[in-house]
């Protein structure tokens, strides 16, 4: 079986190649070939596909593609490649369940299938979006932890330490990473759910050194929290990311590979983006020895994932993975619109309905494109988790009608979306509770969804 050191050795001994040649001659050329060979075609009428053979073809295309192109290591300028048997073997041996959290707040993440009634893992919160202060951080995380159906928490990213803007690879980043952990754990404890796992550990740590600093048990992270290692677009890594994977693996911590293939970039159109999204799961399993996987395919221009082409990508990649592997896969969304807008809720509902009915779980993601500090509230993650819970078990055909209907409500506004309001504008900054205006929007969209056939009230109490 491939072990971590094999990937490192391959990074040192693999085929030498310039990055430009990898992008243009290897990656792009082979991707076009497999898309053509397997006759993969985007279908705007079926944003949630019911075609099992399409899902299986996308998986086969991604498998062939990854065997051929491997992963590019930017530090060694070599290609890390695995053969067919190595990939199959790793997929067979990848974890099929992981327990996260402690005590009564513990839960087990399990794989799902398309139309599966098994509730998805609901990983809720900020998705790593930036906040301007520790007060905002605490207010948000405490209220994320109060979402009754939350299985785990994704914290915001701190951008300042004592008012000084954090710089990467600096002591400020290390201090920010440590504070993220300590504050996150404290905020969850204040919510009365001390065992709830933090699973984007550590949001503020971009570098391996900051991650390792924040891992010290003194600060509050646990082996039952979730840990992440990013990739570089497309299918690339470097020593700093491998260092992160190495540190986490050496401590036996449950590590996710996270990846955002770019629609319109080297992936090309929706077909290529779907294939590359699946290929990233293979990369994560083999190069990082990841046990769970987080995908966020994203639009190159609009920095969101709610447009029809990407809804289709979310659906078909999820089906390709869930039908052909037992990998623990999650989908992460980007909305164009900001908090406290109807549009952001429509975007979330469309994306999670597509992904959950196609067989994956979810992390709530980048609202307002994830680019604006403090544009976060506890309402959107709660809504997203409720959508995910309600969509489990729905037929893909029914989901398709709902998703198309939702997309029609916002697709014309994606280029110029409403940015919504900041946390300070739509929540009580002392308690973190959302304003009446915010709740009215939330309740209004919930009612609209019920009329469309997605009833969010079946599982939890109202605000």
């Amino acid at each position, binding site marked *: 079986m491939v072990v971590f050191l094999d990937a490192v050795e391959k990074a040192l001994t693999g085929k030498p190649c310039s990055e430009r040649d990898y992008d*243009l001659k290897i990656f792009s050329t082979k991707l076009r070939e497999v898309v053509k060979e397997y006759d993969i075609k985007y279908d705007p009428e079926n944003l949630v596909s019911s075609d099992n053979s399409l899902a299986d073809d996308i998986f086969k295309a991604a498998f062939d593609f990854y065997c051929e192109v491997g992963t590019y290591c930017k530090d060694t300028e070599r290609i890390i490649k695995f053969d067919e048997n190595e990939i199959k073997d790793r997929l067979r041996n990848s974890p099929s369940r992981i327990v996260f959290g402690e005590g009564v707040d513990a839960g087990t993440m399990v794989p799902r299938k398309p139309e599966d009634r098994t509730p998805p893992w609901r990983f809720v919160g900020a998705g790593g*979006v930036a906040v301007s202060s520790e007060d905002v951080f605490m207010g948000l995380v405490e209220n994320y932890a109060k979402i009754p159906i939350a299985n785990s928490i994704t914290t915001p*990213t701190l951008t300042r330490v004592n008012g000084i*803007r954090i710089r*990467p690879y600096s002591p400020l980043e290390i201090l920010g990473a440590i504070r993220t952990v300590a504050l996150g754990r404290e905020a969850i404890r204040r919510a009365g759910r001390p065992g709830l796992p933090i699973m984007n550990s550590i949001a503020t740590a*971009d*570098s391996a050194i900051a991650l390792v600093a924040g891992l010290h048990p003194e600060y509050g992270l646990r082996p039952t929290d979730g840990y992440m290692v990013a990739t570089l677009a497309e299918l690339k890594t470097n020593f700093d990311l491998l260092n992160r994977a190495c540190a986490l693996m050496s401590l036996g911590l449950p590590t996710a590979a996270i990846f955002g293939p*770019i629609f319109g970039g*080297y992936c090309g159109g929706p077909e290529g983006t779907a294939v590359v999204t699946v290929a990233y799961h293979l990369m994560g399993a083999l190069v990082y020895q990841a046990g769970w996987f987080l995908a966020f395919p994203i639009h190159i221009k609009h920095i969101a994932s709610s447009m029809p082409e990407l809804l289709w990508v979310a659906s078909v990649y999820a089906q390709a993975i869930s039908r052909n592997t037992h990998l623990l896969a999650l989908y992460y969304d980007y909305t164009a619109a900001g908090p406290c807008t109807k549009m952001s809720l429509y975007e979330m509902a469309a994306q999670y309905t597509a992904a959950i009915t196609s067989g994956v779980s979810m992390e709530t993601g980048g609202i307002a494109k994830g680019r*604006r500090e403090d544009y976060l509230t506890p309402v959107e993650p709660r809504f997203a988790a409720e959508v995910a819970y309600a969509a489990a078990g729905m037929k893909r055909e029914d989901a398709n009608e709902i998703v198309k209907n939702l997309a029609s409500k916002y697709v014309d506004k994606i280029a110029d979306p409403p940015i919504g309001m900041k946390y300070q504008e739509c929540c009580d900054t002392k308690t973190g509770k959302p304003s009446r205006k915010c709740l009215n929007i939330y309740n209004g969209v919930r009612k609209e969804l019920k009329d469309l056939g997605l009833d969010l009230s079946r599982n939890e109490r109202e605000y």
Partner: protein
Amino acid sequence: MSKSRYLTAVSEIINYWFFPTRRTSVINMGEEELLKTLSESVVACDRDAVVKAAQQAIEKGLDPVKAIEKGLSKGAITVGEKFDRLEIFLTDLMMAADAMKAGLDILLPLISEEKVLKKGTVVSGTVKGDIHDIGKNILSALFSANGFEVHDLGVDVSTSKFIEEAEKVRADIIALSALMSSTIGGQKDVIDYLSETGKREKFIVMVGGGPTTREWTEEIGADGYAETAMEAVKVALELIEKKRS
């Protein structure tokens, strides 16, 4: 006629009659047709065809300024517009930029005052601590395609490197990319460094990338900002015109 040019001519005649798809390099091509070939070859990302057409333009005595402006640049503008509408993707954009550059390499040395053709000179890069390059690559490609001289410094670029290079090439614009909320501080560092060393007025500073917003641009005192690379080109042109006037 030298032997090699004779052989080239024979080969082109053979290509013309027996391989109709290769007719882009045909002899006796008129000026308009040649300009069209230059433009269309950039759009088709066909580097070899651009090189051939540029060489032919020289052989035919076509004004290189005209060959660039009415041929290569016209194609490049079409490529930029197609990319903006996502009718083509990043791979095509990069290959078209390559083709354009190959054509410029042939034609530019023939122009005595090459600066006349340039819209401006840009030093671009991703700031210190940030290793993301796709957004910056798109920006560099579109700036090149739109007639800017681009000096792309890559990723994880130190503050002083941006400034040294900008002074060396007498840049009009320093374009700073950052993808992470933890790395945009690097954009402020470059502006602060310029201000504190008395060089701020020498350069237009543009910022862009994932977490960059108009508010951030104003907060750090940058001159320009755009959400997309195509928009950045327009903003750059406006800022240069404003500065020069």
